């Protein structure tokens, strides 16, 4: 891998790390704008709001820099395996979300208690099985073709996840408009 290949790797990894740090509040520092104070790591509100956004960005940037730096040392002969692993992980993530949604849908509508559907292992195992089966039918040339597209697909996926995570702000308004 050349030095320049680290650039798209950074972009892809940054989106993933940003999603993780914003979702789980892994802020490297917290800024309190009213007090003009900066505290290390995610801290609770003091006076006025606490801003974690800068901390999330810093966490994501550090994580992405590490991944991009590691990426530059990976020999080219490993590339096909990395391509497959990334494809596998992305397909797994999508199938996990689908399996989770289906499991909760069935659970809500079932006339008797299907407690196992609420267990996190159920969609995880279902998605894993489905991904393994899908990987047998996924030609190697497709993973090669997708290789550079991950730089766009993963950040786009992250943006869609943010829309989903912030849906609580919009659903009441959409309901009002539809009324």
């Amino acid at each position, binding site marked *: 891998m050349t030095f*320049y*290949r680290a*650039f*798209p790797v*950074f*972009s*892809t990894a*940054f*989106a993933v790390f*940003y999603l993780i740090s*914003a979702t789980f509040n892994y802020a490297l520092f917290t*800024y309190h*704008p*009213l007090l003009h104070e900066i505290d290390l790591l995610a801290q609770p509100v003091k006076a*006025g*709001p606490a*801003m974690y*956004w*800068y901390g*999330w*960005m810093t966490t*994501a*940037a550090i994580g*992405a820099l590490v991944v991009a730096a590691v990426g530059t040392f990976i020999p080219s002969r490993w590339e096909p395996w990395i391509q497959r692993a990334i494809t596998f992980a992305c397909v797994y993530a999508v199938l996990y979300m689908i399996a989770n949604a289906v499991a909760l849908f069935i659970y809500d509508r079932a006339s008797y208690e299907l407690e196992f559907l609420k267990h996190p292992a159920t969609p995880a195992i279902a998605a894993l099985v489905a991904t393994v089966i899908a990987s047998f039918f996924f030609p190697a040339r497709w993973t090669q073709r997708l290789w*550079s*597209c991950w*730089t*766009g*697909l993963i*950040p*786009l996926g*992250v*943006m869609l996840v*943010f*829309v989903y995570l*912030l849906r*609580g*702000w*919009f659903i*009441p*308004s959409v309901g009002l408009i539809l009324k």
Partner: protein
Amino acid sequence: MITTLLLFHGLLAAALIGAISHQTISIWWPPRASTGSFFNRFRAVNVASYTNAIIIMFVIQAFVGGVLLYPFYRVSSRVVMEQLRLAAPVGIFDLKEHFSTVALGLLPGYWYYWRRPLSSEHTNIRIFLTTIIAFTIWWNFLVGHFTNNIRGLWS
């Protein structure tokens, strides 16, 4: 001070919108033989030369908007919007924040694929990344204006 920064932020946003729109239209619908129409002239630009300008303007915008203006929004405008229960405007502004960050992280990849000489095998990813960044810039522009003018919109 805030008004001056907001004006600068708005003016730079207009320049950024222009640059990214030229690049996006041109890469989606490459110019054919010159017909002299407005649309043909709009897309008949040297798209690769816009890349560095877009990156620089985006980074300056992120700094002005994110570092200099955002804390003021967070302690004043957002609090008022929450008190007025304007949930959707707060939500779309939160999306602006997240979209901007993802697009900011995307800039190294965008630069890499727009490096000259342009490789023909990366045409699709160039279109893809440029479209994501264009969408983000347009979203930020519209949401920014919407939030800035929200008092007038709801009066």
